[in-house]
């Protein structure tokens, strides 16, 4: 009994002693830090994902307050975070258009052939070592979920052998982009309704024998685009999102349907007759000649021909055109 008491008393005493010393030290050695750092830290998402290039949100908060990082340096927080930080720092700033990660492949198990049955561990970096993975297409998503495992925001899921990003949850932290051994995940604008969901650089027959939805490099989209926004480079179409107007003509024309577009959500131009002054600017600029009407009379849009590119909407000097 005596030894137990002694042990408890000694350790308790030591613990108490150190506790008191530390409590005392925290008062004596208290250092004031810039309250702005704490405020900025609280405004950041706190995921400590490192996408900004700093080791965690604390380091970024410090860099922002010291002026070493832009207030829009956090790619995860988006516009709302930037607004909050700009209030604390008193600087104006914009986050830029929101972007999300996208797996540029549509080849699930039905659409793309398999070379063999893979029974190894569910990790793309492991399966890619065996002849580049089980998918016959050398640029295809392996669907073993390395991106799912690394995503800190639960924004990627594998459905039928194909990884799909949840645009609402994705924060564009780029972790999956670095993880994917095939390098087929890219950031695309959240607003982009037309995306070439293929990464295959092979041509024609080579693509078709392995995959039903691969880009064959036929350049039909390039010719169909009225805005010079699609270009086929190395047998693979890519959309310039700066120029793209989401008119979806390329997606309609694509013979393999490797360009994804929500055609049912396509908007049409409507002319508000009370406002139209008949200046013909819209008709002159329409890439598909779907606007008719004489000078100084109300114009009409042929909605069977309209592709919803919103060029007329932007050109109209009196805001007489609506997209709906």
């Amino acid at each position, binding site marked *: 009994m005596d030894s137990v008491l*002694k042990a408890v008393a*000694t350790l308790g005493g030591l613990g108490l002693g150190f506790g008191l010393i530390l409590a005392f030290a925290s008062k004596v050695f208290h250092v004031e830090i810039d309250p702005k750092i704490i405020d900025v830290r609280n405004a950041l998402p706190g995921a400590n994902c490192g996408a900004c290039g700093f080791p965690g949100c604390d380091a970024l908060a410090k860099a922002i307050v010291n002026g070493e990082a832009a207030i829009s340096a956090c790619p995860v927080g988006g516009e709302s975070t930037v607004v909050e930080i700009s209030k604390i720092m008193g600087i104006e700033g914009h986050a830029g258009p929101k972007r999300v990660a996208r797996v540029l492949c549509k080849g699930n198990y039905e659409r793309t052939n398999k070379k063999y049955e893979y029974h190894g561990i569910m990790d793309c970096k492991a399966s890619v070592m065996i002849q580049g993975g089980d998918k016959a297409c050398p640029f295809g998503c392996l669907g073993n979920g390395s991106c799912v495992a690394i995503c800190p925001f639960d924004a990627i899921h594998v459905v039928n052998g194909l990884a799909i990003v949840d645009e609402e949850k994705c924060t564009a932290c780029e972790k999956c982009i670095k993880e994917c051994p095939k390098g087929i995940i890219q950031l695309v604008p959240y607003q982009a309704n037309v995306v070439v969901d293929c990464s295959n650089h092979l041509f024609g027959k080579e693509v078709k024998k392995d995959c039903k939805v691969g880009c064959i490099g036929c350049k039909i989209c390039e010719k169909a685009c009225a805005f010079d926004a699609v270009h086929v480079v190395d047998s693979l179409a890519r959309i310039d999102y700066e120029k793209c107007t989401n008119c979806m003509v390329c997606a309609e024309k694509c013979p393999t349907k490797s360009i994804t577009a929500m055609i049912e959500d396509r908007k049409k131009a409507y002319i508000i007759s009370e406002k139209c002054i008949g200046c013909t600017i819209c008709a002159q600029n329409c890439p598909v000649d779907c606007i008719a009407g004489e000078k100084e009379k109300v114009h009409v849009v042929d909605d069977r021909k309209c592709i919803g590119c919103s060029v007329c909407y932007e050109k109209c000097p009196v805001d007489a055109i609506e997209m709906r």
Partner: protein
Amino acid sequence: MGLFSIFIGAALVNNYVLSRFLGICPFLGVSTKVATSLGMGIAVTFVMTLASIITHLVQVAVLENFGIEYLQTIAFILIIAALVQFVEMFLKKSSPSLYEALGVYLPLITTNCAVLGLAIINVTEGFGIIETIVNSLGAAIGFTIAIVLFAGIRERLETADVPEPLKGFPIALITAGLMSIAFLGFAGLAL
């Protein structure tokens, strides 16, 4: 045994990382760049020396006094954890530049088993206070030598043509093993 041979023995012959295999975690974790590993080494030197002095005093004044040496491990862990906290606060106030330089390595040392191992070895060897200080300095400098050399090799490995499956940690572990074998050569020193 003279003080000099205690020092060389702790730094080279019985190197804490490469011969006794203590403190492997920071040795592998913080050795990707020479600059950061040097920071870690300095922080460890600082804490090891202070910790061994205080543990020695507690050992003599408290544990042996009350005849409860069996509580050594738990008491020493308590001391090291509290000491690291205290040193961190002290540095933050008195020397912000040193605090910045040591950065995240200081709190990391709390979990460095080389510090605890050193404190216990000092006791089992029956060292007095002077020998304890010399032994701790030697051990800490040995740790610094090992981690800085290792970091230098790893910096070069970054650009070396390493076979794909061995890239990263596998080659680092092989390197550590080879360094350990190399340090075995010091066992031949006549002290």
